[in-house]
């Protein structure tokens, strides 16, 4: 695979560094874990201490049933830098032009660093699986 994972890891490292001029000790951001979807278990009670730290368990992340096909791995990797690809499967079937606009919004408005060729692959993948004509699952 020719995809550059550097940005993904850079993001993860940045998450533990200085944020908005505030010391690391102030808070913990973005801890996610991976349980099974479709099985809602009762959570166990958390061990609490009477110090100044207040928190919750890691937020669960769930596998996304993205359609198989060319461009799936580019979609998973580039889109997954900032958000779950459930953002794609949650949508109603959208026209191809709407998907093109979404990909462009991620690049131009939100600054996603997706090489042009990969952005085209992602758009093509979305056309092939997520328009009113093509969506199956």
């Amino acid at each position, binding site marked *: 695979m020719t995809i550059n994972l550097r940005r993904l890891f850079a993001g993860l490292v940045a998450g533990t560094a200085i944020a908005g001029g505030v010391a690391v000790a102030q808070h913990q951001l973005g801890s996610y874990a991976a349980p099974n979807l479709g099985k809602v278990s009762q959570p166990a009670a958390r061990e609490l201490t009477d110090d100044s730290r207040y928190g919750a368990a890691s937020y669960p992340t769930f596998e996304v049933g993205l359609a198989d096909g060319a461009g799936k791995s580019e979609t998973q990797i580039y889109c997954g830098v900032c958000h779950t690809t459930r953002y794609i499967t949650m949508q109603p079937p959208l026209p191809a032009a709407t998907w093109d606009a979404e990909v462009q919004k991620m690049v131009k408005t*939100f600054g996603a660093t997706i090489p042009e060729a990969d952005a085209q692959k992602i758009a093509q993948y979305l056309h092939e699986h997520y328009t009113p004509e093509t969506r199956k699952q």
Partner: protein
Amino acid sequence: MFRDALRWTGTLNRRALLRGAGAVAGSLAAASALRGMPEAAQEQSAATLPSFTGPAANPHWNSVGPIVSEPQKAPLILLTDRPVQLETPRNYFTSAFTPNEAFYVRWHLDRIPNAVDLKEWRLHVEGNVSSPQSFSFGDLLRKFKAETVAAVNQCSGNSRSRLQPRVPGGQWGNGAMGNARWTGVKLRDLLNAAAMKNGSLQVQLQGLEQGEGPEGMGSRAFQKSLDLDNPAIDECLVAYAMNGEPLPMLNGFPVRLVVPGYFATYWTKCLTWIRVLDKADENFWMKTAYRIPDTPRGTTTPEAMKAGGVKTVPIGRMPVRSFLVSPDGGAKIPAGMTVNLRGIAFSGYGRVTKVEVSDDNLKSWKSVQLGEDFGAYSFRTWEFSWAPKAPGRYSVAVRATDEKGNAQPDEPVWNPAGYLWNRIERQEFVVGTAE
């Protein structure tokens, strides 16, 4: 033996049923009633929802995602897990206040707090002020008068999945809303403590949420601003309690802004920076996102958008809405029986003064009984005794009117971001014969 005749509540055991019927004369009538039922209906088990809706409007009250359990929360409907977006199921809306554990969740960026150290955390009041301040959580509890307000928090995109044509975004059903008693400090008191300088124009709010995007872009920080001459500023609270408890982490612990009457986009979670600005905030979340067409009800058309030139303004107050919550139409009602219809209503423009229902396709309306008044910005519950006389299919519509005279229209709303839906809601009921 008669018990055998009742077994059709599960998978029908026809042979056992007939055996029972043959042995006891009294159960013959019941057996013949069962024989009239189609096999498919008897064998039917609960079907599950599809994984998406569209391109037609979402026909369900809620969105269609799976039920998941997140930390400090009851099982809720999943929209997305990173960042977290969860919808409150319909059954929680029969009461005026939404439990904290069931309150919907909507974050924009994926690095959201799992933990906050109150020894380090401070609420900063900075920018165009003479005396910048940093308050600890304890300062907020001790140094300022506590105020409480009951107020509805509703996502700008609540009910987005109703729009036609559909628009991209979080595909919420009706459950991206909740009502709570919020307790905290007046925003005005905090601004006064910092002494705003002349030329102050807006106050910008920012919380701990961060994203992976480049510095200076909306994908890095979520910032919202309110005009300082907006009367809503004097109603804003920096809330440290929600329904008398600490806020769940996913709802903005340690403090969040409360802007009564306004959409939730201004209710910054994990609020940490209150920044006084001397010029208008031009960041993405003000200049580009969360804007509505400057038209009546904020509605426009795809054609007008394509043609260009649709003037937009930042989203503001919530239009009047009402919902029929229970019963949910999932069970038949025997003809002649009186059913207690229950629901809620609210408006960002002031008290709900009237809620009406119609069961004849909006031709005639009957006023319902309103529940306790918890203030202008709270949910108000309502009840209505409905007695459908004849078997058939019914559509019951509900319409609210607020003290400013705003009533819900039956025309849909459309704008490219899917905001401001407040069309009259309807619930289908099937009434069966009782004889």
